[in-house]
């Protein structure tokens, strides 16, 4: 543990974790979701050393409830999730907001404008703060991630209300110099105190609680509105209002344009500091509101301006996009327009030149790793079911099945949604349907959908559980099927087959790395009726790789026997393992298939699918 006063380089998410530790957090519960993942990853490593409890809960709702229960018992608690995670948790968030908390409770939510690690939507969590009636604090840099996490705990405890700490991708995943503070020792014990006057959220007391939470928000605005806002004096009657990473871009642009306009930086974005903003817009001719995604601050500034400065010209989403991320390039034209200044940089021309420079080059989309069990499963399913089957997609590494050559995620909606949507299709369509779901996603949200299939669907889609026994995409966190807890202890894993059987499913289990087992199981299930579940079980190859390296061992490598290879291209065109490359002879244009030895992770599936027996293990070494 680094010493207070020392400066270090931290990722935004690591700085949030450090802030929680400095604040004396006692319980942390989370379900991993990028861009928030490194908050729990960091805290899971520190839990034992720092004397707090950490768990990876089965989903965000359970994680939220776990942390809420701890906060009700008087200790400091934190949960962290990505924006969609809050959709899952939201059912419990609103009532807890009304009831309030004893110990400080911080809910970290990371939004993902641009969709760097979220396929599904660009939802803006700031609306949740308003709907749930919870204060929201937004840092712009790793230093603020640390400082504001600590402050969020204090505010939460002072007013007895959970506090949102909202980041975006470019805050969570940005690095920066951070000065560390003192670490507070967490409270060792908590105790839940029965008190119906507080927890009685049934009418008529419900309205009382509603009034109470409104009063808390008002007090927070009064006490912290000014403290969590910063006005940077500058010249002119045109001002900037910014929060989060947009503030950082604004400063960069000020330097580039040689301007120093009066700038209002907001760190408390709900409730907005009305007095501060009124004062800021008074006497100004115009303001430019900088916020990624929806015009949340802008709309509230418009309302304030009606009274405070009705002539104020407000620039915002009229000249800036409400989709994607901001950066200096997207913001510069707005600054140039509002401040009537030219940067002298022709961004469009440079972009065009750069675009031309990459013309004709092959793209590099993300791919399933060499030896990925999912690739093998997709291959077998396509072989048995054909490409016209409806392939219901879900959330996990297997989303990568959306790309060529598999194209086997016809839609990707939310955790566990493959089963529900497949069910809806099966009610009205004769099409054959396969619903894919991963092990972590199964425990997270697919179990209720499986129960529903069993109970309400007599012509159920085939459910394929892609079980690599770990939450792989977000960084190999354990889940209830893994057998390890978030603090590194052991726990008996829950077997997915036991759950599926208990719900009345016909279950087959196949080794993901055996095409024969997969095909046999799939063919068997294809002709059956009722609820059918195939569990394709194979360890994530990255986990296997790490285990082998730990023992100083290597994968058995495979190679292509050129004398037997008939250049059919199945291993590259249909299986698309990144370790196999098709090279073209420049002279006669003949293809040649080669195995990149460094990248072969020895799954042997290419050997199994080669119809000509041209792929063989290189050395006989036991894995």
């Amino acid at each position, binding site marked *: 543990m680094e010493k207070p006063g020392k400066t*270090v*380089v931290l*990722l935004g998410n690591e700085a949030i974790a450090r802030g929680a530790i400095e604040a004396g957090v006692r319980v942390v519960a989370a379900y991993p979701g*990028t*861009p928030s*993942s*490194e908050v729990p990853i960091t805290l899971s490593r520190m839990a034992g050393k720092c004397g707090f409890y950490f768990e990876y809960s089965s989903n965000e709702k359970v994680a939220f409830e776990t942390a809420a229960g701890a906060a009700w018992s008087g200790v400091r608690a934190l949960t962290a999730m990505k924006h969609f995670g809050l959709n899952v948790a939201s059912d419990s968030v609103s009532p807890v907001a009304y009831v309030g908390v004893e110990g400080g409770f911080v809910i970290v939510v990371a939004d993902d404008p641009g969709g*760097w*690690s979220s*396929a599904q939507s660009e939802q803006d969590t700031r609306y949740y703060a308003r709907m749930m009636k919870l204060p929201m604090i937004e840092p712009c*840099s790793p230093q603020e991630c640390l400082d504001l996490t600590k402050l969020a705990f204090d505010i939460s405890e002072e007013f007895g209300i959970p506090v949102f700490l909202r980041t975006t*991708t*470019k805050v969570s*995943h*940005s*690095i*920066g*110099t951070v000065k560390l503070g003192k670490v507070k020792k967490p409270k060792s014990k908590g105790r839940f105190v029965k008190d119906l006057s507080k927890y009685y959220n049934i009418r008529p007391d419900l309205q009382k609680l509603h009034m109470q939470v409104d009063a808390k928000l008002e007090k927070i605005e009064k006490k912290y509105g000014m403290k969590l806002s910063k006005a940077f004096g500058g010249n002119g009657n045109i001002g900037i209002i910014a929060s989060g*990473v947009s503030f*950082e*871009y604004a*400063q*960069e642009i000020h*330097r*580039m344009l040689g301007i120093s306009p009066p700038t209002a930086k907001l760190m408390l974005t709900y409730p907005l500091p009305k007095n501060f903003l009124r004062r800021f817009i008074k006497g100004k001719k115009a303001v430019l509101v900088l916020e990624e995604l929806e015009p949340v601050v802008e709309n509230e500034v418009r309302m304030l301006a009606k009274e405070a400065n009705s002539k104020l010209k407000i620039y915002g989403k009229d000249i800036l996009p409400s989709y994607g991320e901001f*950066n*200096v*390039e997207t913001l510069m034209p707005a600054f140039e327009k509002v401040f009537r200044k030219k940067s002298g*940089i022709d*961004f469009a021309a*440079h*972009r065009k*030149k*750069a675009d031309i*420079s*990459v013309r*004709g*080059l*092959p*793209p*590099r*989309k*993300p*791919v*399933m*790793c060499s030896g990925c069990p999912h690739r093998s499963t997709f291959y077998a399913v396509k072989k048995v079911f054909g490409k016209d089957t409806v392939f219901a997609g879900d959330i996990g*590494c297997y989303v*990568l099945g959306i790309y*060529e*050559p598999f194209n086997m995620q016809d839609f990707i909606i939310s955790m566990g949604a493959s089963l529900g949507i497949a069910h809806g299709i099966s009610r009205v369509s004769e099409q054959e349907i396969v619903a894919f779901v991963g092990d972590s996603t199964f425990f997270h949200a697919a179990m209720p959908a499986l129960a529903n299939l069993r109970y309400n669907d007599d012509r159920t889609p085939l459910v394929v559980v892609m079980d690599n026994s770990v939450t792989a*995409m977000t*960084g190999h966190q354990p889940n209830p099927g893994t057998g390890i807890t978030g603090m590194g202890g052991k726990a008996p894993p829950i077997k997915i087959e036991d759950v599926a059987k208990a719900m009345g499913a016909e279950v087959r289990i196949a080794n993901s790395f055996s095409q024969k087992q997969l095909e046999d199981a799939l063919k068997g299930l294809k002709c059956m009726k009722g609820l059918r579940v195939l569990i394709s079980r194979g360890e994530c190859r990255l986990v296997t790789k790490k285990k082998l390296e730990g023992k100083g061992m290597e994968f058995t490598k495979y190679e292509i026997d050129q004398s037997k290879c008939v250049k059919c291209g199945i291993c*590259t*065109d249909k299986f*698309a*393992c*990144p370790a196999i*490359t*098709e090279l*073209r002879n420049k002279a006669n244009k003949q293809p040649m298939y080669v195995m990149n030895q460094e990248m072969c992770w020895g799954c042997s599936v290419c050997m199994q699918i080669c119809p000509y027996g041209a792929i063989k293990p290189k050395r006989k070494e036991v894995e």
Partner: protein
Amino acid sequence: MMFNVMLTGVGGEGVLTVGAIIAQAAHDQGFFVRGLQLHGLAQRGGTIPTFVRFGKEKDIHSPGITQADADLILAFEPLEAARATYFAHRKKTAFIINDWPHIPVYANLLDLPYPEISDIVKRVKPFAKEVMVFNAHKFALEKFGVPILGNIMMLGYALGTKALPLKEESVIAAIDKLVHHKPAENLAAFKIGLEMGTGRR
């Protein structure tokens, strides 16, 4: 003083680590550090750019690098060097390209042939003050039997050529702090790169 480094390569192949070493070394020399590490989907074999900026605190705000503003682009894979031209400018950017192609499956699937290194250099040149091609992974394979050590060799090369204005001892200290897997080999690889870079100068 402000220095912008872009590191680019293929997700999961150690680009993040080299970025972290540069950030740590710059910090230890008293610079204010900002940057970006994009985690997520791209880590599964996609293009993964990382940015590290260091200099005076008052000058550096944005975590990412703006168009045409990179001082140094360390491309751990040739194709990704071409894709980095957006951040490069002929008046300021030095490219160091590791000539160790990682052919994406899409070259074959979409029938877009992987270019020769000469083609890559041709594409990059109009955006570069200097282009240095260095087959780090090949040297690492010959010397250590492990191509991935070429990453650290590239870092040494960048220092040796003075394309990266950091001190040798601070980078060595950062490697010592951040690299836990095969530290001795990493240090040796760094020194080989450093020597080759110095030789080029």
